[in-house]
Every structure is written in structure tokens, then in C-alpha cells.
């Protein structure tokens, strides 16, 4: 019996993506090491200066998340790149909105896992002292929703193009600039690095996430039909 509800279909797609990801272990073997590598590279670039690194922890952390997110999005659509798979997905009778929700959820969940690992990374490499756990957790949960939604939208736009590797970051990163600002500020506030109201930045991230979830649910239909 095929589940016809949006939620059920989305869960189906998310489950499928996560299973594929789990079996291929590309995420484990490439994206996680890449994210950690970004942290290490920053340490090299900033002279391994503990004080500087500690001060810039929030910014460097979210840049690492953002770059890894671009990789994850590319992964999520490389899975569908085989000729036939996209058609099968399109003809499966799944609602486009459900495909969007499912793919975005899968990416968001992977990002959350990645964030936890990166948090350990900044504690180890940058001697960051994590604090303000409530705000940290809230930011860590809502930012990936916005990143994954925008990423899924642009992912399907560029999927199947020969130049997707270069085009996706060009399109996606300017759009994610507000997330970078918001998440960095919120995390900085949680760590006590900057004296700003972190929760208002959390609200901003939530608005961003809502806007892009809504856009994705609406725009995915016409996008899936054609590309």
C-alpha cells in the first residue's frame, strides 16, 4: 500500500536517500574528513594562534558547515544522476513537494550529524569552550533546515548539468550568506564571544528556514518536470 500523504512520501524519500548514503559511506569517507580538513586548514592559515582561533571559532565553524553542505547537496543529486533514476522518481507518482521535503530532510539530518562532529573538532583543535547549550542546540537544529532547503532547490536546478560542480556553489553561497551571518552571530552569542542577543538571531534563522521550505515546496514541481 503506497502512502499518499505528503509526510509519508517525504519520509520514504528521506529514508531512501539516507540508506543510499549509509551504504555508500561517501559521507563518512569524504564529507566528514573534508569538514575536519577545513578546520585544520584554517588553523594553518591563522598561524595556529590559539587566541585568534578561539575568537573566530563561530565563523570558522559555520564556514566548514557551509562548504560541507555544498558537498552534501552535490552528493544528494549525484545519487539521482544515473539515467533513469530521475525518470523513475518522477514517474513514481510521488508528489514533487514530498520529494523536496524528503531530500531536504535527509540533507538536514546529515548536516546535524556533521555539526556534532565539527563541534568536537573545534573543541579539540581551537580549544573552544562550548557554552550556552540551549542556544547552540537550537541554532544547530534550525540552521540546517534553511541550508538544506535552499541547497535542495539549487541542487535540483543544477542536477544533470555538466557544469554542476562549479555552478552550485556560485548560486548557493550568496543565498546562504544570511544563514552564515545569523548562525555565526547566534553561536558567538552562545559562546559568549560577542555581546548580542543570540535568540533574535535564532528567530531570524527560523524565518529563513520557513521561507526556503515554502519556496521549495512550491517551486519543486516545475523544476522536477523539466530538468
Amino acid at each position, binding site marked *: 500500500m503506497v502512502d499518499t500523504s505528503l509526510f509519508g512520501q517525504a519520509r520514504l524519500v528521506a529514508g531512501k536517500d539516507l540508506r543510499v548514503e549509509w551504504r555508500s559511506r561517501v559521507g563518512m569517507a569524504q564529507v566528514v574528513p573534508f569538514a575536519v580538513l577545513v578546520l585544520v586548514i584554517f588553523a594553518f592559515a591563522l598561524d595556529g594562534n590559539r587566541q585568534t582561533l578561539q575568537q573566530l571559532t563561530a565563523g570558522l565553524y559555520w564556514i566548514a558547515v557551509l562548504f560541507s553542505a555544498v558537498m552534501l547537496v552535490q552528493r544528494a543529486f549525484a545519487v539521482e544522476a544515473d539515467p533513469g533514476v530521475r525518470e523513475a522518481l518522477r514517474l513514481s507518482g510521488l508528489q514533487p513537494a514530498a520529494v523536496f521535503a524528503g531530500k531536504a530532510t535527509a540533507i538536514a539530518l546529515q548536516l546535524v550529524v556533521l555539526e556534532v562532529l565539527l563541534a568536537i573538532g573545534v573543541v579539540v583543535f581551537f580549544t573552544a569552550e562550548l557554552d550556552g547549550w540551549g542556544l547552540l542546540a537550537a541554532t544547530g537544529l534550525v540552521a540546517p533546515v534553511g541550508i538544506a532547503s535552499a541547497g535542495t532547490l539549487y541542487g535540483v536546478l543544477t542536477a544533470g548539468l555538466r557544469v554542476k560542480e562549479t555552478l552550485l556553489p556560485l548560486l548557493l553561497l*550568496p543565498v546562504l550568506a*544570511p544563514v552564515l551571518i545569523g548562525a555565526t552571530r547566534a553561536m558567538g552569542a552562545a559562546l559568549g564571544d560577542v555581546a*548580542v542577543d543570540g535568540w533574535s538571531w535564532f528567530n531570524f534563522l527560523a524565518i529563513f528556514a520557513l521561507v526556503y521550505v515554502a519556496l521549495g515546496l512550491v517551486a519543486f514541481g*516545475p523544476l522536477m518536470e523539466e530538468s
Partner: protein
Amino acid sequence: MTKADAVTTTGSRATRILAALAALGVVWLVLLGLVFSPADQTQGELVRLMYVHVPSAWLAYLSFSLTAVGSAFVLWKKSQWWDLVAASAAEIGVLFCGLALLTGMIWGRPTWGTYWEWGDARLVSTLVLFLVFVGYLAIRRIPADPTVRANRSAIVALIGVVNIPLVHFSVKWWRTLHQEATVLSTDFDPKLDDLMLFTLFFSVVVFTLVFAWLLVHRFRIAWLEDQVDMHSLGIALDERRREAELVGGGS
């Protein structure tokens, strides 16, 4: 048009009149902006940069708005005409946006002391807007079926436009929520006298004329490109068909 080698252009009577008006306007603008208009009390002579910076920025916003409107019509009415308008406006918009940023930086250096001021929300969001539409142009360049290309780029343009308030808001908030002493006043509120105000208004008119001329030509080029594509596709198809017939006849 009888001779094949006669000069053919994207010009027409209307555009030639437009070009003449724009050229006349440019001459007057140079005289007004660089010679006749007075120096400002606080800004000094530097206020003259306003007459190229402000109209460039205005036309960047106008172009991108036109792209957004065109994109909405593409998705709503499946209009190919609007797709070409959107594409043409976007390219010219990127041009003017780049000029606005460039002249802004040139202006910022002597007034703020830096080429770039991250505290200015308008400047930073204009930069993001510029990058978004550079991406739009990049995705347009990818060869694709015209309707696929139209839909795809329309969605990119509309997402880009939806994104503007988010960027503007976040940048504004980013700086105002944590501001050390305001070293540089980014507010520029000059007391414009009448001739300065007129020159500014005149510069916007002249730049808009130039914009109109560019847009018409760019649109005609976009239209011609599609014609050429279809024409050469037709030729290729004919050849393919002939080949198939030859092969079919031989066996």
C-alpha cells in the same frame, strides 16, 4: 533588403533617435556634472561622483526588477518574449550593478577612507545581489531547450529577489547589533542645492535613456540568437534526414 551583403544591424529608426537623444544627454550631463554644478559643502568636489553612482545603482535595481517581472510572466504565462526581456535586463543589470559598486568604492575611498565599508547594509546587499545575478547569467549560458532554460532561470531570478530582504535585514542587523564606536559615518545626507538636485535628476534620465537603448539592442540580439539556433537546428535536421534517406535507399 535586396543585397545579402548590405549592412544589417539591430538598429532601427526608433533606436537611432534614442541614441541621438542619449548622446546629447551625455554631453549635457558631463557639462552639468563636472563643470556647472557646484561643489558640496561637506563632500566638496567629490559630490560629482554621485551623478554616476546614483543612476547606476538606480538602473541596476530597475533592471533586476524587470528581470523579476519577466520571470514571473515566464512562469505564469509561459511567455518566451518575457524570458528574453528578463535575460536582457539581467545582463544590463549586472553591468550597471558592477558600475554602481565600482563607483561606490571609488567614492568610498576618499570619503570613508576605505574602498569597502561592511557597515553599509545597502552596499553589502547590493554586492550579494550582484553575485546572485552573475549566477543567473551563468545558468542562462548553459545550452538547453528554450523552455527549460526559461523556467529554470526564472526560478533562479525569483529566488534571488526573495532573498534580497533576507540579506538586507541580516546585514543591517549584523552591524547595528554589535557596533563599536562609529568611526565612519556612513550616512550621507548632503544638503543639495537646486542645480545639484537637477543634475542628479538629469543624470538618472540620461542613464535611463542609455539603458533603454542597450535593452532594445540586447533584446534583439537575444531574439536573433534564438532564431539562429532554430535555423541551424533546422538545417542540421534536414541534413540528418537526407543522410537517413541515402542510407535507407542504399540498403
